[in-house]
């Protein structure tokens, strides 16, 4: 090593690797932006062409789905409605159960019990959706079929579904959003300062009154985030409900075999051709737009939550 080497030399040598590193990190960061832009671009590029071909009104508000008929008809209104109604009822069923479980975990349960139950809930989130679908097929569908036979026996005009119907799908979806709702609610409830509860007790309120009149309202923003996340999850779930919801496009009544936006894609994409395929891309685009709206709502809620804290 030369003795007259200046410290400036080594710093210049360092600079190249420093600058290279900086740009590599910058590029890694931009990958996410690039991915979102190309996904959006492709969804529109492939999803839009079917609209003028079929006619936007006939496509979005048509009620007859016969893509392989002699005179094909591509109405996806029932599919859109099924996704909305299915998600809505899954939320109505799953959120109260999830919220009350979260209340139990944070407000009532002894600490060692929480230590057992909370990991169990996390595990529920990690179970692959095909397993939910498999269990739905084996356990839920037969049970719902019994109920169906009980209700519709002797009634003409009902197409028996063997239990593979909207009701089964709603139950599976409700179970699948439980972990999301529970986890978000638990962290929201935990973040409520103890002084709120103490103040409520000092006013003579019972524990239950405190929970429902003070703690839950104070944790509102976090709980809402959990609910909206749950909506996103239910709307985007494909495989599990494809296995339990039956396979024909019908108006979303509890005991009708139905198609969701997602299951429409799963079950027909493999063989669809021509206009049929293009329409399926439009179904994907509709789903994508729904999800983007949910995402924006989610960000607005979490931003408002941050502003409230300030």
């Amino acid at each position, binding site marked *: 090593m030369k003795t007259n080497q200046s410290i400036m030399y080594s710093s210049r040598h360092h600079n190249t690797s420093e600058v290279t590193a900086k740009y590599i990190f910058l590029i890694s960061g931009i990958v*996410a932006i690039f991915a979102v832009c190309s996904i959006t671009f492709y969804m529109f590029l492939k999803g839009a062409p079917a609209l003028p071909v079929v006619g936007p009104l006939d496509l979005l508000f048509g009620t007859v789905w016969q893509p392989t008929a002699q005179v094909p008809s591509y109405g996806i209104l029932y599919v859109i409605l099924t996704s909305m109604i299915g998600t809505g009822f899954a939320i109505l069923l799953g959120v109260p159960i999830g919220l009350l479980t979260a209340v139990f975990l944070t407000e009532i349960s002894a600490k060692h019990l929480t230590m057992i139950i909370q990991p169990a809930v996390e595990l529920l989130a990690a179970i692959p959706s095909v397993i939910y679908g498999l269990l739905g097929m084996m356990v839920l569908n037969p049970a719902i079929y019994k109920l169906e036979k009980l209700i519709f026996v002797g009634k003409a005009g009902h197409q028996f579904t063997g239990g593979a119907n909207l009701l089964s799908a709603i139950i599976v979806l409700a179970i699948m959003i439980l972990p999301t709702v529970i986890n978000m609610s638990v962290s929201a409830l935990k973040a409520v300062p103890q002084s709120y509860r103490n103040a409520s007790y000092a006013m003579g309120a019972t524990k239950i009154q405190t929970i429902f009149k003070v703690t839950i309202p104070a944790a509102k923003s976090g709980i809402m985030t959990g609910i909206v996340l749950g909506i996103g999850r239910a709307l985007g779930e494909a495989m599990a409900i494809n296995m339990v919801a039956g396979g024909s496009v019908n108006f979303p009544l509890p005991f009708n075999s139905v198609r969701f936006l997602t299951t429409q894609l799963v079950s027909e994409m493999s063989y669809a051709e021509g206009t049929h395929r293009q329409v399926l891309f439009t179904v*994907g685009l509709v789903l994508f737009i729904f999800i983007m709206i949910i995402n924006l709502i989610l960000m607005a809620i979490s931003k408002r939550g941050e502003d409230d804290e300030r």
Partner: protein
Amino acid sequence: MKDSICVKRKRVSDYVMYGLIYACAASSVLLLVGIILYVLVKGAGQINISFLTNVTSVLRGTVGIAGNIVNTLYIIIITMLIATPIGIGAAVYLNEYAKPGKLVSLIEFATETLAGIPSIIFGLFGMMFFAQTLGLGYSLLTGSFTLTLMVLPLITRNTQEALKTVPDSYRSGAVGLGAGKWYTIRTILLPSAMPGIITGVILAIGKIVGESAALLFTAGSAYTLPKGISDIFTKTLSSGGTLTIQLYLSAQKGEFGIAFGIAVVLLVIVLLINAATKLLTKKFDVNREK
């Protein structure tokens, strides 16, 4: 008024609510226990060496999932090889380099959006872009590229959280000793954040193992093993179904024995991954408290 303040008033509605709360908590737990027990009871009998090491073949009369296990490993390895450096890089950029501004909020917005997109949309995009536009077809590579986009937010977020917990004194200490930023990141920050990064990687692997909708139209459903040493790399360009895809296809065909056998394998993997992350987070927290 005859109510004394010393007599505690009993509210019926309180008891009803308590009952509901207990019932909900109990049903959430029973659900998990029920799911695990049912799968184990139905599927455990299916598991044996032959099931795990053979490929289903009518010719030889064997039933097995070895091909699907290998495909799953392929997808895990390729996906993680691409996603881990990019995810960590993005987190380092956000946490160490970027100044708050338009670009940072745009990257964070994009990461959050990616995390919110359902897997079926990723599958659709993968099919349109990687399989058709880039001409990769139904292949393990297409599947891996698609899943890379999907697990990216998971790794970025976990790394970011881990980097945030590294005390600023570490950074100023390194700068004070004359270390450059890259040198500090390489030798101080990333090693300190390692448990968090590994947690993110394990969670991502868990997500890949459980994924199905994004792979159905990207990686396809073949279940054969590589045809010898020379096929190890070319295999990535051919179709390959993971365990979840095979479970789905078997269930659709009514082969519930195979489906439950795979379900048991998946459950065991999920349980192991869960335990590993628990262990890591626990260790991580203990180290921090010291």
